[in-house]
């Protein structure tokens, strides 16, 4: 599938210029440092349960970006995996009382298991058809959750999901400490996402995104790759959904409802499609906005988030993160050009560097 609006961030990484590579490494380390620091101080700055929400949604958005940004598939049914895992995590935690990472693992496995048939039937389509098919499957999961009262509690939701963590009461009762326990799980998920994108497998996904016919011609089994990406993405969404459930102590029908699928796509778009980390920014923006607006007395949360979405789509096509990246690249290039000019006193060189980077 070719989509001209999708950025081609990954291919530029293939540049083998050693100077540029070192610059990239430094930049990456700096950004990584900032990211880690931000994640560590987050619950000091904002209310810890809200911070845990941001974590969960950030990984959820990353899982969507894995499909949307790196495989070119817009899933509009990811709530099925987030919510499916949320229910299974909740049920395991309530009935078995196991430590929550185990319950979340169970939820994650469930999400991946249902992703196999759903993915198998939907990856054969692309674009709007793929979005609609995934939405339809997610709605099926929604109706099952709504009707199966004995197991899911239906409209009332599944209440009283315990936080069990190897008897360490600090994590079990204090949302501040819980945040750090959740952070470990989310970071594992994010690193997994990063590894997937930067593996040979991830390169094939990007190739499929940019030109699936050509990838097929080169001998790649396009459907199989898409299906694997879909299942992996569902697994990450499931991990995020499980963390969300444990953090809140309940599962509601809302987790499997379609607005949840919409919300996570919104976060991904606002953060920046195909940037992987942009989703975290998008998640932070949306979750904080919801939190602030609901205490502010202002009555139109939807109006504000809608307006932000429109602004981002119209003005920052690559989302917040993508636009920042662009701006950063432009400054770096301008500096490089100026440095080169100073060295050579020859303006013609600038063009060459511009092309080479």
């Amino acid at each position, binding site marked *: 599938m070719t989509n001209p609006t999708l950025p081609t961030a990954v291919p530029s990484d293939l540049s083998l210029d050693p100077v540029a590579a070192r610059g990239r490494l430094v930049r990456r380390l700096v950004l990584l440092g900032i990211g880690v620091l931000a994640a560590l101080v987050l619950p000091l700055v904002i*209310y810890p*349960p*809200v911070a845990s*929400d941001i974590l969960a949604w950030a990984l959820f958005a990353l899982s969507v970006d894995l499909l949307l940004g790196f495989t070119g598939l817009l899933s509009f049914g990811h709530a099925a995996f987030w919510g499916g895992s949320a229910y299974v995590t909740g049920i395991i935690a309530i009935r078995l009382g196991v430590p929550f990472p185990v319950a979340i693992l169970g939820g994650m496995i469930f999400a991946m298991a249902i992703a196999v048939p759903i993915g198998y039937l939907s990856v054969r389509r692309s674009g709007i058809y793929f979005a609609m098919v995934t939405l339809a499957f997610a709605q099926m999961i929604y109706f099952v959750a*709504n*009707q199966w*009262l004995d197991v899911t*509690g*239906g*409209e*009332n*939701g599944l*209440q*009283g999901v315990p936080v069990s963590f190897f008897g360490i*009461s600090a994590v079990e*009762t204090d*949302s501040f400490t819980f945040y750090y326990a959740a952070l470990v799980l989310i970071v594992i998920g994010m690193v997994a996402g990063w590894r997937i994108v930067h593996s040979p497998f991830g390169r094939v996904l990007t190739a499929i995104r940019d030109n699936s016919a050509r990838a097929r011609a080169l001998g790649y089994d396009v459907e199989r790759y898409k299906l694997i990406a879909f299942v992996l993405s569902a697994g990450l969404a499931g991990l995020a959904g499980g963390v*969300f459930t444990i953090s*809140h*102590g*309940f599962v*509601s*029908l*809302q987790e499997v409802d379609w607005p949840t699928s919409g919300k996570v796509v919104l976060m991904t778009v606002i953060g920046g499609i195909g940037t992987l980390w942009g989703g975290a920014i998008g998640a932070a923006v949306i979750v904080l906005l*919801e*939190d602030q*607006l*609901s*205490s502010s*007395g202002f*009555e*139109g*949360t939807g109006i504000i988030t809608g307006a932000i979405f429109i602004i981002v789509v119209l003005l920052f096509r690559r989302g917040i993160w993508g636009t920042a990246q662009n701006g950063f690249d432009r400054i770096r290039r301008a500096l490089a050009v100026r440095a080169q000019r100073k060295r050579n006193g020859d303006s013609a060189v600038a063009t060459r560097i511009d092309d080479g980077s």
Partner: protein
Amino acid sequence: MAHTRRKVVGAVALLSSAMLLAACAGPAATSTSKLTDGKVVIGVLNDQSGVYKDLSGPNSVIAVQMAVDDYKAKYGDKAVATNIQIVKADTQNKPDVGNVKAEAMYDRQQADVILDVPASSVALAVAKVAAAKKKLYMNVTAATTDLSGPTCNKYTFHWAYDTQMLAKGANGVVAAGGKTWAIVYPDYAFGQNMSKSFTAAVEAAGGKVVASIPTPFPNDNFATFITKAQASNPDVIGIMAAGGDLINFVKQYNTSGAKAQLAVGLMFITDIHSLGVDQFTGTTFTDAWYWNYDKKNRDWADRFLTLTDTRPSFAHAANYSAATQYLEAVQRAGTDNADAVVKELEGKKLEDLFLRGGEVRADHSVIHDSYTAQVKTAAQVTEDWDFEKIIATNPAKDAFGPVNPECKL
């Protein structure tokens, strides 16, 4: 082990603080020292922007403010709660938002009590928070009986109504001649609950349910279900839908030419106001409170009208009542300590604007008289919002279901 240690530490802390207090409590001690943090904070957590905004929403905050004003006027210098703050937040009817907001209210805003909280899923989530934080929670606008059932806890009170109370109003309808019923309900937890409660209530009153028809939820086209319901030729068609679905159903019902009397499971006066009495004429439903019932209600509704430009729904009056009774309990206890306040509420008989024959039951369901109401015809309406004719008053002990055996406090 850790538990006993904590208990010991707690006891020691309590003892030493009691000794400290005894040392300080000279003649100079003021009433403020009885409050845990120098103030009483009442949190109103509800839907400030969505479907439940009109029936409760921002105007419930005003109702609570009225309760605070009345409390101050009543006790003046003798008031235990000298410094009362009201904080509010919007749940957007999302359980996760409501859950975080409730935690934040208790933790960051030092709320001593949270009021209102519509939507069952949100309400149940907040009950868990209240139990964990050991702070009061008086739910007003959620209908689920689970609040005084499986999720009941020491700090949670269910104030105004529940699905069983709504169903009990069917007694009045059966007594007035509506013997055979067809029940149409949306097929999800609330609808199924309502259908079950209504069936039991109708049969207990000597009526008969001849058809029970589930509909998808949400749904736009009710034509087939209306036809199905009519096929059994019932005296009454009971519709258990709420909100937008209810409005759709009623509009379609009126154009279908059906002759059976319509009984609505859950209806607020704001629903009648938004759709017009014409659409509902003759419809019966159970109301927890009606503003034009007697002079006391009317006087309060007049005050409410000057502040809000609208008449109160039962939810507004119930929020006023919950806030009032909370402050009264603080006054009796002499402190805002949650456990002491709970003790002042448990098992008490309460009377106020909203609670007639009110009583806090063992399962923390607050029972009171309910009313079987019928929507007036347009000709009978003498002023705006004067929509209801009360055809029966159900005394508190008959108005609610039995004490929930699932509740273990």
